[in-house]
């Protein structure tokens, strides 16, 4: 039994910047995997490669036995027409196709459809799963009505599943932030995924909302959906993830269970800098180095987000 998602030696270069530099990991069906790393480590870039938004420079991504990265034949590459062809959808897998294969994603900054109602947002995600012909839509045939009814029913099911409590007919912009997050997760689930990529789902949520999110992610896993999440909130990750992949400068620096990661010297170094590096006296006096970051309280979840301010310079 092969893994649900296999990323092998993934590389993505923007000019001279190596956003992702040889990343490899696998996701098994029905597990919760967290991807962490300091800001700019290439987490979101890797997500974009996996879900088909970016075309990686090299490497392979195999999802559910299907290749997501395709290489154009050398003939086209020699003519330098690959970019043009790929912009028309040749020699690449479009994100919509990846979604149809069963990989759904959310975005770092909420990207709901602003002028659609909550219900329509979720219905939109069922695009690939419902059949409505052109004439059926024009003539409102019984088949069309049935498809629409079922679509609404399923959308409501997902809204209830994520615990959305508001009015489904409101526009999403009228909802508070936490509820918008829920709708976004419901929308991703409505595509019927096997693998759900969550890009910083807890960003901007308060403590209670984070607790509810943790429960929600667990119940998504219980449906049989594998969840891969990028997060900065260590408390949430240590509680939730079964395995953690740590990235830094586009490279994978550690993989393991939360306990292993917590005590991994390389990870601590990536977040905090080298521990035995002599501290600059002037920096200490001006307070640019927060000494409290250096003790082991960072990764136990109580000091969320402080890792971002770690001494990296």
């Amino acid at each position, binding site marked *: *039994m092969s893994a649900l998602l296999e990323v092998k030696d993934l590389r993505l270069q923007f000019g001279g910047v190596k956003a992702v530099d040889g990343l490899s990991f696998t996701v098994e*069906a*029905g597990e919760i995997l967290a991807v962490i790393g300091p800001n700019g480590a290439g987490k979101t870039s890797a997500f974009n490669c996996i879900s088909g*938004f970016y075309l990686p420079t090299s490497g392979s991504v195999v999802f*559910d*036995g299907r290749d997501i990265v395709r290489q154009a034949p050398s003939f086209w590459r020699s003519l330098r027409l690959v970019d043009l062809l790929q912009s028309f*959808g040749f020699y690449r897998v*479009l*994100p*919509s*196709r990846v*979604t*149809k294969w*069963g990989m759904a994603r959310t*975005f770092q900054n909420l*990207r*709901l*459809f*602003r*002028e*659609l109602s909550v219900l*329509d947002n979720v219905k*939109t*995600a069922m*695009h*690939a799963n*419902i059949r*409505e012909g052109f004439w059926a*839509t*024009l003539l*409102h045939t019984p088949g069309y009505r049935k498809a*629409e009814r079922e*679509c609404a*029913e*399923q*959308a*409501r*099911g997902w809204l*209830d*599943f994520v*615990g959305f*409590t508001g*009015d*489904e*007919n409101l*526009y999403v912009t009228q909802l508070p932030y936490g509820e918008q997050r829920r709708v976004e997760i419901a929308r*991703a*689930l409505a*595509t*019927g*995924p*096997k693998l759900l990529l969550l890009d910083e789902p807890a960003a901007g949520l308060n403590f209670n909302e984070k607790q*509810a999110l943790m*429960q*929600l992610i667990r*119940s998504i896993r*219980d*449906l*049989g959906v*594998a969840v891969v999440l990028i997060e900065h909130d260590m408390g949430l990750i240590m509680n939730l993830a079964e395995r953690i992949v740590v990235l830094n400068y586009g490279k994978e620096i550690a993989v393991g269970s939360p306990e292993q990661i917590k005590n991994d010297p390389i990870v601590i170094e990536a977040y905090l800098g080298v521990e035995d590096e002599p501290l600059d006296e002037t920096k200490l006096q001006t307070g640019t180095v927060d000494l409290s970051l250096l003790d082991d309280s960072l990764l136990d979840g109580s000091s969320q987000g402080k890792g971002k301010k770690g001494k990296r310079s």
Partner: protein
Amino acid sequence: MSRSQTRADAALRAPSPLFDRPAAPAGILNSNKGFLRALGTLAVVLLAVLPFINATPYLMSIATSALIYVMLAMGLNVVVGYAGLLDLGYIAFFAVGAYISGIFTTVLGWPMWAALPMTIAACIVAGIIIGAPTLRLRSDYLAIVTLGFGEIIRITANNLQITGGPSGIHGIPTWSFGDWSFSDGFTLFGLEFPQRVVFYYFVAAVVVLVGVVGAGRLAKGKMGRAWKAVRDDEDAAEAMGINTYIAKITAYIIGAVWAGIAGQLMATHLSAISPNSFQFLYSALILMSVVLGGMGSTPGVIIGALFVSLAPELLREFSEWRFLIFGVLLVVVMLFRPAGLWPSTAILPWLKKLKPVPPPTAGFMAVPAASANEDLETVEGEETR
């Protein structure tokens, strides 16, 4: 690669809803849908009785033109209002429809009804030819390219032999079925309609009605949601499994077909067409009626189209001043209703106070998701492939 059946291989089905929703309010005054239906019925009745009240050729001619504008605006509304593609050369499809029907009826001598499928086919082809290379572009760039294509079509028509060059095509026949033609006259309920204009008005009314209802229905279905998703956020739409390219080109083709049918109506209505009827100004006027009425809103776009087509006529007594007054009116409207006269997100003023009944979810958040999970079901064993 062999895949044994695992949970991941079963299609993920939505859990059934945990709560019953209250039925959506129905009725003319307490629901948006009911009100719009009533308004639509009223409009249809008005449309039907107008020739019985006043059937001067002048009025009929203006009314037919206004209906053609409504058809055009509904088509452009699909492209601009629903799919969010700014098209500044929309009149090109109008020209394609008019010229194709003109050529088929005058040069080849086909009856008008037989030219209709040809018009539709030509517009689909034109939509694909213009849309396929340009729809990879976004917003401003698309606007510039479509503007160019609009001019190309007009200049081509100006220079080809078959389109009659600058003088255009004359003597386009009206609709006829076998021996009977609309120009023969017709008596209905003891009322005689001598001018073909009157009959023509009825044909235009029926076609436009189908166009308006059809565009509205398409916008509510799966494809319409895809269009709106593409308009609101193209990347997110792609992530939802919508092939945005196909969604955009579908919107483009639908818009082209609507414009082509309007073009055929126009060709029969005026019985003569020339490249001058397809200047950029008309693209701008139709776009204006969509923006003025409210993008993506059927009643708004109809009001906008009627305003744009009728205002110059109603202001005729101000002679040269009328276009100035028209412009000032537009500025005033846009100042006070920036989202359009009747925006798609509008809530009827008397419905704003009504609080919608929320689903009975009080205390739901207190329920741990694990226990709520018992109500959920995944359908196993349904192979996706």
